[in-house]
């Protein structure tokens, strides 16, 4: 029992140490970071965070990222719900092939799509808009959401559908009033994954935006190359990108283990 606890604690320490170091740096002045090596801030300062909260080019990055992540999650769930229902309940022409084709998109390297996406969205006038990034991220989020939701839906017995139809429910009414609430935990998990993969992605978000919809990840990489190395602000920006993740995990903590098994345990 002792060794087990030891392994777990050791692993968590390994996970937290680099994050602590980032937090530590974000609370120091640049002089302290570069001149002396200290394990905790000697001269505690929130100036780095103030830079981010007062400079529009910084905080807009967070707003832009949030907008396209939310858009992406909404679009993904709206289209993935009926599709997952179809896959979990019906045999139809080409269903296996279609499912496989969807999954291959989850596995397509974003690097393959970066340049064509840029040209496609430029040609339809969507370049540098939030919706472009949201749609581009659908490429890998929709297949994943369909996959997760299908797993959860298959866990609901078909007799429930049949009973509802006998009771005179139409399909849309049954789907919205009875079925969707029954798999709400699955929807939460799918939303969590959409949020997660859209929030952490950099390559497509950077390729498809320049000014108006620039994501926080892109803001961070460009600042590094442009203005030299302002380590303190960079660290503070990094810490701030972790916070939404913590909030989201907190809300889905009870489903997280099942969700990571994609509803298929």
């Amino acid at each position, binding site marked *: 029992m002792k060794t*087990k*606890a030891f*392994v777990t604690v050791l*692993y*968590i320490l390994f*996970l937290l140490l*680099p*994050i602590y*170091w*980032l937090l530590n*740096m974000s609370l120091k002045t640049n002089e302290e970071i570069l001149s002396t090596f200290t*394990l905790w801030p000697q001269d505690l300062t929130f100036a780095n965070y103030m830079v981010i909260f007062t400079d529009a080019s910084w905080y807009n990055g967070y707003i832009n990222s949030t907008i396209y992540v939310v858009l992406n999650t909404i679009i993904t769930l709206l*289209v993935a719900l009926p599709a997952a229902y*179809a*896959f979990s309940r*019906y*045999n*139809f*022409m080409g269903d*296996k092939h*279609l499912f*496989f084709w969807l*999954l*291959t998109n989850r*596995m*397509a*390297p*974003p*690097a*393959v*799509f970066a*340049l*064509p996406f840029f*040209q*496609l969205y430029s040609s339809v006038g969507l370049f540098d808009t939030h919706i472009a990034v949201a*749609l581009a991220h*659908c*490429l890998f989020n*929709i297949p994943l959401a369909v996959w997760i939701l299908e797993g959860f839906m*298959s866990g609901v017995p*078909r007799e429930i559908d049949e009973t509802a139809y006998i009771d005179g429910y139409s399909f849309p009414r049954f789907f919205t009033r009875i079925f969707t609430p029954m798999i709400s935990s699955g929807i939460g998990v799918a939303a969590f994954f959409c949020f997660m993969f859209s929030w*952490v992605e*950099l*390559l497509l978000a950077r390729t498809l935006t320049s000014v108006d919809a620039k994501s926080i*990840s892109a803001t961070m990489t460009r600042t590094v190359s442009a203005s030299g190395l302002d380590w303190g602000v960079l660290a503070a920006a*990094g810490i701030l*990108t972790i916070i*939404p*993740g*913590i909030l*989201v*995990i*907190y809300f889905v903590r*009870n489903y*997280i*283990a099942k969700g*990571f*098994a994609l509803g*298929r*345990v």
Partner: protein
Amino acid sequence: MNKWSDNRAWWLVLPVVLIVAFSAVIPLMTVVNYSFQDTFGNNEFFWEGVGWFQEVLRSDRFHDAMGRQFLFSFIILAIEIPLGIVIALAMPRKGFWVPFCLILMALPLLIPWNVVGTIWQIFGRIDIGLLGAFLDNIGVEYNYTQNTLDAWVTLVVMDVWHWTSLVVLLCYAGLQSIPDAYYQAARIDGASKWATFRYIQLPKMNRVLLIAVLLRFMDSFMIYTEPFVVTGGGPGNDTTFLSIDLVQMAIGQFDLGPAAAMSLIYFLIILLFSWVFFTVMSYLDRVEN
């Protein structure tokens, strides 16, 4: 579960097909288009046939990037899968600490990939990073921007830090689905710890492990952001993986033809692995039902 046969189900799938087709099929066709043509600018294109494919398949640059990519994915899987199983077995099964552990372990998964890169870029620096300074203090020569081995070690440790939790959470979910009665039966039979693991826990985990192997293989195979931020593909080209090479070629040098051909080859490799995985998974599904 028996399913209803009804082709009208296509209407439910149609929105997904349209959106994914817009963001997958059209761009893919653009890539195919470029891969068979050459251009001298001004939007004039000439038929090139399979020339680019031959060039890419024969070039050392592609072979090297491919070799590094497979080596990296292999190392990642060899470390993360066993480590993930061990930690999942060590985690508490119920009680106050469970949500606490889960939240902390999921944390690295939700950090944007470039921030993961930044964290490790800082962490490994000798002057301002904890790890770099520590290694320097105990007398280890460590410099991930100059030394190939150090760069690789940094990237591997970073990936282990970033993604092992995914394997842990998947295995943990598999373990949670084992009823207590199984363990009690094992105890009555006097089964050793190893036997419990081999005949009760491992079979219950095989499906989630399959998902874990697939996800880790795919994601490590298309890794871009983290090595790009930490090493930028260097020193030299020693950590230039396929995606980094591809982006350099397509967006950096604007060599559309070779880049497109390389994209397609890259995509076909991934497709092949997906197909194998999908076949195995549907086979397991059939066996279980």
